[in-house]
């Protein structure tokens, strides 16, 4: 079909760049927006004058769903908060309910939780930094980091049966004790992690393009980060050395020697480097935990009102049958009350505020997801930067839709 002539009449004029501000919609159907965030941009040329960050596209009603089942049935939901480090969510939720119950998991279980959790944190940081580099065109570091992440996942799979959404935490302990080769497997992978972190850094840290895209871009000040409630690597990159593991030690974190890496400028580069350093610190924690962890003993409490009894007992004794029946059909009974319990998740302070009415079902489960607060800082990071800077900046806060929207 032949086009009408009018279209070409003002051809010269049409090529002129409009001087007026432009409003541009980015996402949610944009690969860098994870399919879950919409940004309404006000642009002057290529400069971002204002941005309206709109979450909510992954809202599943997680908190409300928790009010329908038993306390134990929250675990699969918790897995799907930050699904890149589900073990940290599992343990975070367990700790909240255990605080309400006033119980403490045996030492071996605590070390087991720490090691699995730090492995999950390493995976989380691998994913964030790898994907961040890939979004700037550096595909090799991404594959490099994810190769080792897969090996870590192999360990997690051997322990829990699943690579990602493990649902492995239990109120009062873990679903199973460590497998026989657990410590050896973890020790074997540590040099690999060191090696690949070094290689990835070698590929990136002297790359002019990478440096230009990361340094001095997406700056967040220390004061604003604190004011906005940021936590985790986003907060630490601004120079605030706040880490729940250090400042409010839980489980056995006070028994380990490790550093809290901080940045100076709060830009993309600092966030990237803080995560890289945290991987090394997590390895330190894992090594110490492996040394200190008892090789014998229970990983969970043995109270049949809290932990399911062993299957063999359930099938052969009435006591265990009843305990199993009560826990499955009615759920464990938490005393009436409310607690707030918080841990260091992959992206910062992951808090659970839970309310119990004394029945077997949660009355309210409120999650304080670190991503939600970190996402609030994105607007201030982006204003004044170029449109292309949105990709590395948004990538560097590691927004996970699952926990942000819930």
């Amino acid at each position, binding site marked *: 079909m032949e086009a009408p002539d009018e279209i070409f009449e003002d051809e010269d004029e049409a090529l002129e760049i409009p001087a007026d501000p432009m409003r541009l919609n980015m996402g949610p159907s944009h690969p860098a927006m994870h399919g879950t965030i919409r940004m309404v941009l006000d642009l002057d040329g290529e400069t971002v004058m204002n941005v309206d960050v709109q979450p909510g596209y992954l809202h599943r009603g997680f908190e409300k769903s928790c009010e329908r089942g038993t306390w134990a049935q929250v675990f699969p939901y918790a897995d799907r908060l930050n699904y890149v480090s589900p073990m940290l969510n599992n343990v975070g939720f367990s700790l909240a309910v255990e605080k309400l119950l006033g119980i403490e998991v045996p030492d071996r279980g605590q070390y087991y939780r720490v090691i699995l959790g730090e492995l999950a944190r390493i995976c989380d940081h691998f994913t964030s930094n790898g994907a961040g580099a890939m979004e700037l065109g550096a595909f090799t570091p991404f594959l490099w980091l994810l190769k080792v992440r897969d090996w870590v996942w192999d360990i997690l799979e051997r322990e829990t049966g699943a690579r990602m959404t493990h649902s492995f935490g239990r109120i009062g302990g873990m679903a199973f004790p460590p497998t026989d080769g657990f410590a050896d497997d973890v020790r074997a992978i540590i040099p690999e992690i060191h090696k690949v972190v070094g290689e990835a850094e070698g590929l990136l840290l002297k790359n002019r393009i990478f440096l230009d895209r990361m340094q001095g871009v997406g700056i967040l000040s220390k004061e604003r980060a604190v004011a906005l409630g940021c936590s985790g690597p986003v907060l630490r990159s601004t120079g605030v050395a706040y880490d729940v593991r250090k400042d409010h030690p839980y489980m056995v974190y006070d028994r380990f020697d490790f550093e809290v890496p901080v940045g100076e400028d709060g830009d993309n580069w600092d966030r990237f480097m803080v995560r890289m350093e945290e991987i090394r610190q997590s390895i330190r924690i894992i090594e110490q935990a492996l040394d200190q962890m008892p090789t014998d003993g229970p990983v969970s409490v043995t109270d049949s009102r809290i932990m399911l009894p062993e299957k063999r*007992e359930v*099938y052969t*004794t*009435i*006591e265990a049958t*009843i*305990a199993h029946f009560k826990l499955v059909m009615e759920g464990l009974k938490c005393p009436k009350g409310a607690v707030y319990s918080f841990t260091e998740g992959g992206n910062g302070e992951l808090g659970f505020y839970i309310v119990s009415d004394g029945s077997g079902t949660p009355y309210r489960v409120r999650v304080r997801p670190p991503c939600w607060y970190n996402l609030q800082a994105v607007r201030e990071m982006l204003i004044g930067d170029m449109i292309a800077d949105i990709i590395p900046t948004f990538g560097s806060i590691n927004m996970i839709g699952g926990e942000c929207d819930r």
Partner: protein
Amino acid sequence: MPTFKLNGQDIPFEPGDTIMRAAWRAGIEIPHYCWHPGLSVAANCRMCLVHITSGRQMAMPTLKWDEKKKAYVPDTKPKLTPACQQAAGEGMEVTSVGEEVENAQAHVQEFLLLNHPVDCPICDQAGECKLQDYYEEHQHTAKRKQTEPVHKPKGVTFGPTIVYDAERCIMCTRCIRVCDELVGDHVLDMRERGNKNEIVLAPGRELDHRYTLMTEHVCPVGALTSQDFRFKARVWFLKSVEGVCTGCSTGCNSHVDFDPRIGKVYRLRPRDNEDVNKFWMCDDGMMTYTEVHEGRLKTPVDGRGEGAERLLPEEAVDLVAAKLGAVDAKKLAIVLSAGMSNEDNWVLARFAEKLGAGRLYLAAREAEDVGWEGDDILRSSDPNPNRAGATLAAKSVELHDLEDLAQDVLAGEVSAVLALGHHGGEREGALDALGSLDTVVVLASNEGPLSAVASVQVPVASWAESFGSFVNGQGLFQTFTRAIPSPDGVETAWKTLVQVAAALGHDLGYVRTGEVRDELTQSATAEAAAEPTATA
């Protein structure tokens, strides 16, 4: 009222009350198996042991494990008392918590589970079993016994309604006491001792009196199960609403247990009401739930026998309106029902007033026709739940019985009938005369003698499908709650009547159940006020 202290809290009691009964009245549970508020004290389960801390203390010698010496050493412990048997005394101080009492509870519980079979997955009591509840609350330790449990008879048929499992039984003797004390029939007893104990029937007898299901009702564990409910449903899937039994004019209060997922009623349980049924119901009453699903009318039918035609619900309303509009109101007989709710009867009676209908009749079951016998326990001699309510609905108009109706039809004084319910006319041939009339409209939830002679049958909601009320034989107004939804297109009788009236141009003015109920209770109150000697 004198008081004693239970765990530091003042509990009032009446002279003669035991600690258990006073606590039960105050809504505080002391764990127990054998005690039941409606039965005598047996004090054999020992679960309710409490420590009376006031008064002279008695020390019992005992052995205690000494961790340092790695040996048992002599010790003493306080003597505990069964709360179900100990009379409360003014100023008495009792504790049902604390180490001593909790130890006793845990050990009693452990003994009860010593030989208990691993039956929860196949036991109908699971989910409402006291052994389960108390295990979680008071024992929660693993099994220590390593030997084979003692085996006893399982699945023993005690009678047409009850099956007994001796292995699950904890020998609380509640079933024996129900038979003895409620029914006065010593059909159950206990044989052997210790772990060979079992409940047995009297020689040559079956458990076949009129209150056999109460033995299952009082059984705190799964030893006695009902033949009817066995293996039908798991109790944690059931929901419950408050019902009133339709078996007779006593109007025993019940829990209607139904599965909300499929809209099916599975059983009734007695609901405690000191003024009506205490804690009990009779077997026939317990089984009245079956009529919710059996012999049910679901589709409107026009015509009789071969030529009968099924209708849509909205067609039925128009058809009934057309039929009623065509008859001479003076020759239209209105039949109220002693089996339907106050609301249904009230609206029908008001509709009759609007139509200017000639005579009012009452359809009621006669005891001899349906083989009903009353007794002096719960069963009244009148097998109709709402004769008093139907009479109330008619206000001061005299109600004739169905025999009169048949005679009036034969005499030509009645040429059309509008009847409610499936009760009444059970005697052979009692309603034959109605079979010759062109217009016999019956609004009923179930098949019955009236619907058998109907020229038009309109299904209506049963008691389990509607909010309603009955007035029982002693004049008590009792409401019941809807459990399950009606079949498609089926409304309550009173709503159907409001629609028929509207089609005939009469506005009865009722939209909600509450409006009907308010009006009828106000009318009853006014009547009672006008005639102080009459009972409502």
